[in-house]
């Protein structure tokens, strides 16, 4: 299957399993939002897919290739951490082109890709800006552009809206959703916020205690939440 397939994955920290025997699939062009409360294992799963944590059991297949034991730098996964992980010593252009630069891409190709990415995230004219001069939303877009510049096989986003202030959140989230619609890669997005999850997801997976408790479209899950806990998670103010 084209996309990401996780088979019977067991993973955690320092030998302690947080996720046990998890199976999950995300097709090409699909956006899956992983939602759960703190400690549910969603970030652990993200870090295992990325290659920061090594699973004790199971397989991770990306476009049918087994990447379970591949070093992080060889997985070709675009990753946007919660704080965007931008390099403070580099400007906007240098941040976006970083992945291309370390991969030895030619200057010409870097330049072309950089222009393409700046247009894609609507940051033309910001090439030479310092990261410290950008707003939260602009930083997030630089992080996204940087993750996408490497033509990733998968995009992972960890709480991408948690550092955006409430006033601009809707605008940033709408922009992000529009960008996702234009992408061909499978996307996994992690959040603990029910509003973000409902707004951004196409497909939703609810994680509880290291297991995917329910998976489906937002409509399906909202219509028939499997447990009262899931109902409370998605509709905290209307759960009676």
């Amino acid at each position, binding site marked *: 299957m084209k996309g990401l397939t996780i088979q019977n994955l067991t993973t955690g920290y320092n030998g302690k399993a947080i996720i046990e025997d998890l199976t999950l699939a995300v097709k090409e062009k699909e956006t899956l939002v992983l939602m759960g409360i703190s400690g549910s294992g969603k970030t652990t799963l993200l870090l295992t897919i990325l290659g920061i944590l090594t699973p004790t059991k199971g397989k991770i297949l990306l476009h049918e290739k087994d990447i379970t034991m591949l070093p992080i730098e060889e997985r070709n996964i675009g990753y946007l951490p919660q704080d965007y992980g931008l390099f403070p010593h580099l400007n906007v252009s240098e941040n976006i082109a970083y992945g291309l630069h370390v991969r030895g891409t030619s200057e010409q190709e870097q330049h072309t890709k950089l222009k393409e990415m700046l247009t894609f995230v609507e940051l033309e004219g910001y090439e030479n800006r310092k990261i410290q001069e950008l707003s939260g939303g602009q930083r997030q877009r630089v992080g996204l552009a940087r993750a996408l510049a*490497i033509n990733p096989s998968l995009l992972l986003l960890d709480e991408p809206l948690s550092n955006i202030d409430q006033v601009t959140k809707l605008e940033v989230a709408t922009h992000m959703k529009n960008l996702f619609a234009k992408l061909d890669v499978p996307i996994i997005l992690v959040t603990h916020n029910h509003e973000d999850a409902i707004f951004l997801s196409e497909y939703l997976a609810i994680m509880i205690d290291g297991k995917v408790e329910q998976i489906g479209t937002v409509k399906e899950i909202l219509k028939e939440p499997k447990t009262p806990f899931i109902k409370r998670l998605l509709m905290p103010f209307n759960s009676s």
Partner: protein
Amino acid sequence: MSKFFSSKSLIFLLYFLAGCTLFFLVGTILFQYYIALGSLDKVLAAFTNDRILSALWLSITSSILTTIFAIIFGIPLAYVFAMKQFRGKVPLETIAVDVPQTFPPVAEGMIFLLMLGPASPFHLNLTFTFAALVIAKFFIAGPFVVSTVTRRFREIQKSGINLTARSLGANPFQVFTTVFIPMSLTDIAAGSILCWSRAMGELGGSLIFAGVIPFKTEVLPTYIALDAKTLTTGALAATILGTTASMLALVTFKKLTLKGENR
């Protein structure tokens, strides 16, 4: 206690004690300038004394060389301490970084004399050489680079930005050169200044291992140590040169550190 003293008098006591400490510390440093002003002609003449100038030159050059070596060898060690987890890391780091900074100076000289002296088990006699000066200074001052840079590397590692760089395709060495080093430049500079300043003042190892050979291995601290007994203006001039250089370096270090904290 507050029954007998009002809070105003207690806070006054606090300020008074702070003032006493400050007066003692700063006053001691400034006292040399006060004495020098009393016999300015003689002190100024001593500044042009060939032996003192040679000791100053040897102090500066050996300390610069020490700092260069501390950067070359210390930064990789800082990377290992910050990035690698292994059994016995804490005691090893304490012995390698903290102990040399507080090592009894004469003991350091003794060890080097046994290790790299006339009876060296490695058949390498470096006593009374410029190399001995640099080695003795490196042992005491090099760890300042290691500790300052390790602290910064740990911050970077904790932020996870190194892993983001790897996800973009950078191998661990590329992450070291494109993330760790450029993000630590202020700290490397601060650690280097601290190292240089400490190397300028190193005495024990220089005295015992490198010896006090004028125009060859005599540095400002050893010149002062031998000349101080007779309280000459030469010793005073050398003291002023050494402490002023150190003060300037440390003020620069503080400025860099504050700049680093605002990053």
